């Protein structure tokens, strides 16, 4: 966000409403989702979203480690969002920093809001998100990947959790910021939507927006999430679709 430095602020929005990569304000970056990308995990997904590359894996329901976190009436959902050292321009020291821990917490709570955790008392559902290449919106890409991974693992949920960030660039509300827009933009608002209920289970915001802009941003984000929801469902169909038998041959 708003990095202060000698660097010149690039023009983020052209006169005809195009962004630096040619997108319109309400356009998403290309998203590709592969459900079931790993072999050891119970469920997994790989998401390429713009220049983001994010892998997610789900293990469980399984025994709770450490034991004292165990809950007698439901499963605990333990989420770990981590960035690879080489995923950003300046090498990041390996391990969880405070930012990663906060993101892990809010993502974990988002999933606790949709998973039928009471079906699996005294167990843990472990959600691991690894950012391999980062270009703004990694937590949203992480939620999308983890949500598909949870479905791939067969964990019962109210719904999938599409997620996207809305921001403000050159005074306009824009969907799905990329790195330069995030660095030099005026606001960033990541969210995750439960499509069935239309409610948000992840919501953060940083920057400056008026009340009217915020309302517009929420509406735009929900629209973006609904589009991503379709891509997520298609990824799961692609993984589990069974080809019809042709001409009766087995």
């Amino acid at each position, binding site marked *: 966000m708003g990095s202060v430095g000698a660097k010149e602020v690039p023009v983020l929005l052209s006169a005809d409403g195009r962004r630096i990569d040619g997108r319109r304000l309400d356009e998403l970056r290309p998203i590709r989702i592969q459900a079931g990308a790993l072999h050891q995990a119970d469920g997994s997904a790989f998401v390429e979203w713009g220049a983001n590359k994010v892998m997610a894996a789900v293990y469980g329901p*399984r025994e709770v480690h450490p034991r004292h976190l165990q809950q007698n009436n439901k499963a605990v959902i333990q989420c770990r969002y981590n960035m*690879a050292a080489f995923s950003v321009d300046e090498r990041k020291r390996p391990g969880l920093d405070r930012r990663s821990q906060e993101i892990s917490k809010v993502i974990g709570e988002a999933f606790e809001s949709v998973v039928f955790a009471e079906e699996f008392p005294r167990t843990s559902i472990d959600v691991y998100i690894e950012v391999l290449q980062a*270009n703004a919106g990694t937590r949203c890409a992480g939620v999308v990947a983890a949500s598909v991974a949870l479905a791939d693992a067969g964990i019962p949920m109210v719904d999938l959790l599409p997620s996207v960030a809305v921001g403000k660039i050159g005074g306009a509300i824009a969907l799905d910021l990329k790195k330069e827009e995030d660095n030099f933009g005026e606001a960033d608002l990541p969210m995750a939507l439960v499509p069935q209920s239309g409610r948000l289970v992840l919501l953060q915001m940083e920057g400056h927006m008026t009340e009217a802009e915020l309302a517009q941003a929420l509406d735009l984000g929900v629209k973006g999430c609904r589009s991503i929801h379709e891509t997520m469902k298609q990824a799961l169909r692609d993984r589990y679709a069974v080809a019809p038998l042709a001409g009766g041959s087995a």
Partner: protein
Amino acid sequence: MSGEVSAEIRTSHILDLAADGKRLDGRGPDEYRKITVEPGFVVTADGSALVRIGDTAVLAGIKLEPGKPFADTPNAGVLTTNAELIPLSNPTFEPGPPQPGAIEVSRVVDRAIRAAETIDLTRLCVTPGEKSWVCYTDIHVLDHSGNLIDAALLAAVSALAHATMPAKRFGIAEADYPLEVQHVPIECTFVRLGDSIVVDPTFDEERAAQGRITIATDETGRVVAMQKGLIGAFSPDDVKDVVRRAFVHGDRLRGLATGGAR
């Protein structure tokens, strides 16, 4: 847990098969699983490679930054290798500080890179005693289905062979230039299953193994590093045998690591 019971059954099955010179996935004792190398997988890294050996997937990323040389080697750059066995990659890994297994992978890979003089460290020196490049190799294990060491080194040397010095970004030179790799070490890992010694163990074979041995060779015919691991023993003749086999595999794997590199 039933997982442990089935692991026991699988272990005895693997050993029974090995007695007949067979393996669970149908490979011969001296056969690797399918290997693919994808250099340049991560654009935020100065060099990277995604390596798959069968169901094992390892991603290595290189970051080059200006730093200070060590006091005892003022004319040399600094090389750092770090492996993360993240809990995403295997059900047995837990979050937290690096486990001995991760440290062993880091160190065995680092040793091969260093001993083979993969990088001429004097060429990473910018101003003697004051400024030199620090070359970070970070290894991210994504899918641990056995034989991490071979996959990790293959990913690391492939990433190094395809790396670019970000000299322009740090104002050290007018333009970026390729990182020069002078030797290419390759590690081959074998495990003992009864009387048989097989290459490229799967996760289940590692669990059944009665000893593991890794041989690192380079393209000049040198053995540059070795590591015996797990519980078990090898005779000197066993070692001579696996060294011979490691040279044969090394030549092929080296081609995969440097394929397409300058």
